[in-house]
């Protein structure tokens, strides 16, 4: 609390901002020497609690969350993380009061339109924005704007931002199954024998570029996945639950998580490196020895004369 106040007052001095950025680049440079995750997912939980703690309106809480999101995206792209996924809206969240749902929709739309305007943030860094989820549940006007955002940034190839809106993992898996069954039955482009895990990965909403999530971060301390990326975090991913609320999620928390990922990934790589390999020659020599042994015996003499 005190530290953040100090930071707030010091940040009014222009030189201080420069020093902070330099320190951040330094730490990012150190982390870049190790393995960096390719795909990171965020569950941005805790906006409402933050608003309540600081006696702000609910809308202010969501605004603070959106600002933190922009900061976190900035850190990610500086680190060189290729794909970032954010859980903006769950299909279950439609149960919330209508006013809040509308606020969230407007906020999201305005932020995305702002980022993707030509010459703005998205074009400067080459971010491609994809809207992931069951688009049939979004109202018409917002859907039009979101489609425009997607089209504008479709040419960018450096980074990828997946906005899950609205999304639940079960819906994702079910849609994937429906798509594949349709392909088998109606379009007849795949046969039943070709159905395997890779095919399912291709048909998920995320597509085939980054089918697996390397790091999943959930803020505000709840230790459950809440129907988010159940399929994608199944194998080899580092799931971290942070105790801070989303608007308070800062540089230090983020770097700790990347450090953790780097540590586990290194352990994994070491295990692969030092696995004892069986060379083919050993087994061949062993087989030859057995054959020689078996064939090395005095001549047979049977009682039946055969």
């Amino acid at each position, binding site marked *: 609390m005190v530290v953040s106040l100090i930071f707030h007052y010091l940040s009014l001095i222009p030189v201080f901002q420069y020093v902070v950025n330099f320190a951040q680049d330094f730490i990012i440079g150190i982390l870049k020497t190790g393995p960096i995750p390719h795909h990171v997912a965020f569950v941005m939980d805790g906006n409402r609690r933050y608003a309540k703690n600081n006696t702000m309106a609910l809308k202010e809480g969501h605004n603070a969350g959106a600002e933190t999101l922009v900061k976190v995206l900035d850190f990610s792209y500086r680190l060189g993380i290729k794909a970032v996924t954010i859980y903006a809206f*769950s299909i279950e969240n439609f*149960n919330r009061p209508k006013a809040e749902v509308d606020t969230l929709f407007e906020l999201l739309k305005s932020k995305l339109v702002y980022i993707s305007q030509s010459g703005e943030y998205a074009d400067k860094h080459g971010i491609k924005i994809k809207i992931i989820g069951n688009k049939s549940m979004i109202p018409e006007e917002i859907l039009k704007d979101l489609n425009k955002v997607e089209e504008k940034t479709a040419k960018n190839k450096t980074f990828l931002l997946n906005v899950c809106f609205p999304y639940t993992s079960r819906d994702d898996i079910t849609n994937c199954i429906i798509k*594949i*069954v349709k392909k088998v039955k109606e379009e007849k482009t795949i046969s039943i024998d070709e159905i395997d895990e890779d095919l399912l990965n291709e048909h998920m909403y995320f597509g085939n570029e980054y089918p697996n999530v390397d790091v999943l971060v959930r803020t505000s*301390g709840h*230790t459950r996945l*809440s129907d988010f990326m159940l399929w994608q975090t199944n194998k080899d991913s580092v799931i*971290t639950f942070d105790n801070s609320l989303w608007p308070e999620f800062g540089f230090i928390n983020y770097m*700790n998580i990347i450090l953790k990922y780097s540590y586990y990934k290194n352990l994994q790589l070491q295990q692969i490196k030092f696995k004892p390999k069986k060379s083919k020659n050993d087994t061949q020599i062993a087989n030859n020895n057995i054959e020689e042994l078996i064939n090395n015996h005095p001549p047979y003499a049977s009682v039946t004369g055969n």
Partner: protein
Amino acid sequence: MSDIGSLKKRHDTSKRISDFKLHEHLSNNNKHSNSLVTKPSEVKKSPQPPLYNFDSIPITTSKLIQTAYETRGPNLDQQEGEDIDNDNDNGKNGNKSTLLPFFFIIIKLRFLSLAYNPSKTPLLINEDVNKLPKIPKRVSTILNYKPEEEENGGIDGLLNDGSEVVTWCLSSGINCLSIYEYNGILKKHIPELRRSIYKKLATYFGPDNIPNFSVKIPHLNLIYYGVEDYDIDENNQKKIDIEISLLSVIDGRQTIVDLTKIMADMAKNDEIKVEDIKIGFVDDELRELVGEEPDLLILFQPYIDLQGYPPWHIRLTEIYWEDDNDQVAYSVFYRALMKYSTCKVNVGK
């Protein structure tokens, strides 16, 4: 494809395998039972409550666990949507990974498992559990197969760990447990597992009073009752006190892939329409093929690694793990239950 049969029929409870093997590991089971208590010289001594005296309630030990938990975890009493005026430093404890807390956690874990050794009495476990406001209905754990050389390792260690978890669940009143082990080793050692559970239950509850248990393998659609194969009708009539499901990596993504294949096949033969495939339909099928959704998933490993656990089922499951812990210890189990009792479940709101 035998899975088509499982879609159309309910579980065939009459199938069994009578596959007895006499083995010498039975006698070794008792050696592993005191693996919780290690290195007492490193641990601070505290006044221990008398372990075999059922009359005295061990207030000191469970309060220790509560205070230890409060210094570690988030203030989960404060939930979204509720107006609680608790202290303000919720969320300031981020992830601090330096060496000093590492030692502290290791010593704390050893101390907790020493101070909180139920010593094979279900009564103590039951009293502890009754202090909690709520408990999960279905619990699932992920067990890891450790190499033979390690302490409590190999197949015997795995059987021992599994049986201990069964007894803790039973003493807490939880009657639905599923054990996930990546390689499916437990599925291949069913007779040993049944005997191990039987012996462990005998040490906890006394040989006259052993509860009825059933071991179920959803993937192969098999159920085994108790420790020996009796006549089928007799067992079906007895009430089962705990049902244990064994899962492995096949029950995860591979089952969903198989389900897709079956649905494609059925759609091709016009047995179902593509419009009929909805979340509810897939949910029903997967629940039948793999089991119900667990409320709480306990990981006895120092980090969260789902290892291919069935993805469909952990949608709302609380995941509990203890930093830097790789032993299957009662303290971890009890703290998982404590954490679950403080969590508010609200879907989407």
